[in-house]
């Protein structure tokens, strides 16, 4: 498992790990590890384990989770995006996301990008320009766009997440 680092940098580079539709928070952060929620680095060793047992062993700093529809459905556990980020993942790309997971990801500073992931294969080299809104699949030599975030979420991301937004503004300033 890779070290954590700041994901606010504008150009992200890494390899794609493909997942299917309906990747639930139970697959990302299984309930049987409930007791590890107070030990996030340890919990991160099990991230997505029930969807792909090899993932944690193979993922490198900056790599991408690339999935189908409705990624992150299920529980409100914020531990799910947190441990994806802790495992080194630079961004999650999916055709669509479940609402609570999407909001949690922005709050904790994990980029979540909505795009046509069918065009990306397992192990493709990707380069993502967050500010320009472009995903380059270097392996396939194609460019994909992704859906722009709502302004309020960009504001939160730029402040470094919700906690930092509240500290900085002594309350909401959206």
């Amino acid at each position, binding site marked *: 498992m890779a070290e954590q680092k700041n994901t606010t940098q504008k150009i992200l580079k890494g390899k794609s790990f493909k997942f299917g539709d309906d990747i639930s928070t139970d697959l990302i952060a299984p309930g049987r590890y*409930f*007791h590890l*929620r*107070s030990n996030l680095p340890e919990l991160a060793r099990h991230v997505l384990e029930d969807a792909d047992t090899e993932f944690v062993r193979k993922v490198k700093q900056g790599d991408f989770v690339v999935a189908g529809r409705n990624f992150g459905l299920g*529980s409100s556990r914020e531990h799910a995006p947190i441990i994806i980020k802790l495992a080194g993942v630079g961004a999650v790309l999916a055709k669509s996301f479940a609402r609570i997971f999407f909001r949690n990801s922005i709050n*904790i500073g994990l980029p979540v990008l909505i795009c046509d992931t069918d065009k990306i294969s397992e192990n493709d080299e990707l380069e993502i320009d967050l500010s320009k809104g472009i995903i380059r699949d270097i392996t396939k030599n194609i460019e994909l766009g992704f859906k722009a975030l709502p302004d309020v979420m960009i504001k939160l991301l730029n402040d470094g997440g919700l*906690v930092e937004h509240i500290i900085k503004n002594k*309350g909401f300033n*959206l």
Partner: protein
Amino acid sequence: MDKTISEKIISSHAGRDVYSGDIAVVDVDVVMAQDGTGPLAVSQLKKMGFEKVKNPAKSIFFIDHAAPSPRKELSNTHAVLRQYAENAGMVLSDVGEGVCHQILVENFASPGDIVIGADSHTCTSGALGAFSTGMGSTDIAVGFALAKTWLMVPQTIKVNFNNIPSKGVYAKDLIIYLIGKITAEGATYKTLEFSGSFTKNMTIDDRFTISNMAVEAGAKAGLFESDEITKRFLKSQGRGNDFKEVFADKNASYEQVIDIDCSMLEPIISMPYTVDNVCSVSKIEKIKIDQVLIGTCTNGRLADLKIASDILKGKKVNKNVRLIVVPASKKVYLEALKEGIIEALIESGAAIQSPGCGPCVGVHQGILGDGEACLSTQNRNFKGRMGNPDSFIYLSSPATAAYSAIKGYISDVREIL
């Protein structure tokens, strides 16, 4: 301009008229977290420098997911919640009190409120006409600290449940049917507003079951208008004064209207591993089950336990099945004891567990073995949900669950009604 229920409630808490698509910072009336999400909320509160919360009387920590604690790590995180709650003067709902969503509707949520909780099934309180929605620990930490949150006003899908369902078909069947129809992401970012002639014949417990599962279609909220049924329930909880009329304006604009003829529906189940993978019980092959769970925030209320005990009374649970029953709250448990429901269930072979989430989230009290199947009245059946990725979860109404517990395989309860 006419408004949906969501637009009305959010407008009243934003101090201006807002409509679907608008972003608003709103006052919130009730804020909660449970023992799986609360400890992270506490660390975020501390990071922001908040030792106190804005509205302690309606800020609640629930210890329900791992209650009583099955291991020391969880006992230690429970202690974190107890300590913070005491310092901040917050409400603590401890071991034995029950599942957060049931206690919210019994004691805290009221029609017209905005309720936010660090648990996805916070949408349950929508049955009372409260705009009630689930968020993560960080949003909830801010909610505790400021009694405010930000929301995008959702579009609304109106669902009309029309006509009376036939025997053997319950609220759980209706909501599973709806999710099968619109899929697990059919209502993402939206509110489901439940209406139609049958809603006026539902019990309040039926409404809780339906609102509870709104999030399984991706919805932000699952709302009912408040009415006489709501009023009666609040009175029964000693909260008659909390009643307020909540309804949608006549010409409110809906993204979609879905009409369901309830009289056409059959008992239905969700098959592994998604809630929208539905099938009528009459159409399935013989599915053997090892465990049956009756309980949870979806179907652990008095009406549910009564339906189950009426079926199980004087009969025996199949020798190959473990039947686990978990009342949703202490109040439900006591009522069920008084009415002889618990006794009938125990006589039939059920194991009764103390109020809480029980085995629903895969922490304890009924983890499945490799290859085992469970028929459960809970709300989700994702792979690994009950603690073992090599097991299978089917979802049904309490009636289907109780009858199947006798038979040993998933069975059509209409055979005995």
